[in-house]
């Protein structure tokens, strides 16, 4: 892990990029969104107060996926008509990036893929199936969401998105896939649905009365 230190261009507070693959971070003091370039860092935006949410996960929560440990490095919070969900950016042992999504405590871990054929948004209708890497995935939900906030370090710039459409797919074997249609070229993430016990989370949030 190569840490790289800098100072917040807005308030001067020290900034630490704990993961080399991080491009963006949020200043812990002034909530400026700071993007790292080849030469320096620059402020690109500001995070408002994050909605009061109740994910048991937080930055620096640790857990396991398969035979690898991971730590939570950042987060994107989405809002949609039914509520909110989190995409937690996780960094696995060895430095690989992944995403732990948490929708009302329904968890899935997925990884960005490349080179796979991705259907267009209109092709990805509810109930349609697509085969990737030999596994058949079926569309189980289409969600129009709004970016609602970021936290921690992210592997890309992500701060000015407005409406984004996500398509979630599942297999007959707990495989999970999600297609992010927010960019011109859609991005396909593939992984597994996981339950709380198999994640073996440490350093989770605590709840009054529980």
């Amino acid at each position, binding site marked *: 892990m190569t840490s790289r230190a800098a100072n917040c261009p807005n308030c001067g507070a020290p900034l630490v990029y704990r993961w080399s693959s991080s491009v963006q971070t949020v200043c812990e003091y002034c909530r400026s969104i700071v993007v790292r370039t080849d030469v320096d860092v620059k402020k690109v935006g500001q995070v408002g107060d994050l909605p009061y949410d109740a994910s*048991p996960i937080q930055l620096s929560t640790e857990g396991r996926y398969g035979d690898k440990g991971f730590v939570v490095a950042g987060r994107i919070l989405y809002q949609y008509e*039914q509520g*909110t969900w989190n995409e937690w950016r996780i960094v696995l042992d060895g430095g690989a990036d992944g995403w732990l999504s948490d929708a009302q*405590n329904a968890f899935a871990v997925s990884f960005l893929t490349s080179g796979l054929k991705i259907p267009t948004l209109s092709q990805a209708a509810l*109930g349609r199936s697509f085969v990737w890497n030999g596994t058949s995935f079926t569309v189980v939900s289409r969600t129009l969401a709004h970016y609602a906030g970021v936290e921690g370090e992210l592997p890309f710039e992500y701060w000015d998105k407005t409406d984004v459409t996500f398509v979630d797919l599942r297999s007959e074997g707990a495989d999970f896939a999600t297609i992010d249609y927010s960019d011109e070229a859609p991005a396909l993430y593939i992984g597994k649905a996981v339950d709380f016990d198999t994640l073996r989370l440490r350093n989770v949030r605590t709840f009054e009365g529980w």
Partner: protein
Amino acid sequence: MVEAQGRPPVSVRSVNCPNCGAATAVRTFGHAVNVVCQSCRSILDATNPGVTILQRYTDAVREEPLIPLGTRGKLLDIECEVVGFQVRQIVVDDVAYQWREYLLFNPYREFRYLTEYAGHWNVVSTLDALPEGGPTPDSSARSYGGQRYRHFQTAEATTTFVLGEFPWQIRVGDMTTGSDYVAPPLMLSAEVDADKEVTWSLGRYLRADEIWTSLSLPGKPPRPVGVFANQPSPSQGATRAMWRNAALLVVLATVLWIAHLASARGKEAFAQTYVFDPKTAQEASLVTPVFELDGRPTAVQIETATSLDNQWMFVGYALVNDETGQAFEVARDVSYYHGVEDGESWTEGAATDAVALPSVPAGRYFLRIETEGERTASPVRYRVRVVRDVPTSLWFIVAVVLIVIPPILASRRALLFERRRWQESDHG
């Protein structure tokens, strides 16, 4: 679980109703999207710090949940709190059927439901994997986790009453299409929300008393009415066990029967030929010499071989113990007729007869023979033969019948139960 390093514990808060001013405690922390005001039943938007009213409560009738909101306990090994309650209904042939759903919360786990219809309870969890047989519901069977589920019902459900809080938007009047597939005690369900989402879930049937114990509820639960879609049959498993036991007993009886057939000696104890002339005596009676029946109390066969030809006779036997006077009586009609009619030859009856007396104790016996016939008939020669220790099969047949009656009755009960179950389905 390790104490959180980062943020302080998530604290409980409450929302104030803009309609009536009452405060309602929020039990699911930031998960609460909609909260129903506990006082005026308005549905409030809890995601908005200003709290707005999403839907006002209009119905005159208030539903009271059987399980109060805030109840905590362990259901299927997971600690949970009842945080939301909704009544939903389907309408089939103009009849509305209502059931109740309790939303179960644990801050680290997925939300679950506890459903109740006519005293029948299910704990329902959403599924991570799709069932086999197609991801979108239809009326064909599905498989999940190696278990086959038969389609039970597809219906449009409407939310008619809500209470508590929900981690998603909820309104009275919400409609979804639900399909249920059953493999008691499990039920696979799919819920389709327009063209946006298909959610598969798995319900497990629990007895009301199990729910009451798990949640430490006071009093007694209402008695279940009728047979529910995934209610386990009371004879499930039991019927199979009964058939297995019956099969074992039949095998045992068959072995005994075969051993009996093989060991029967078939020893001739007495044989004598007599002539009966009905012209001289329409009814005749004679007594045989005494003969010995030896060994264990076994069956005795009395055989009558006659020269009857288009004629009948009646033979009455009394096997009498010479020492004790104990008598075994049996009466036989022997007749043999034959002829040709329209070029076809026919016969009726037989000139010989055999009858077995079961379990005759050893001893010295004689036969008293009474014969009877038509006065006009010709004389009949008949040979009487007494055979000791002949094989008998009647007991075997009776045993088999007695063995299979209980499982047949149980199967019938199980069948009736299944019929009642499926009567309530789309296929009834």
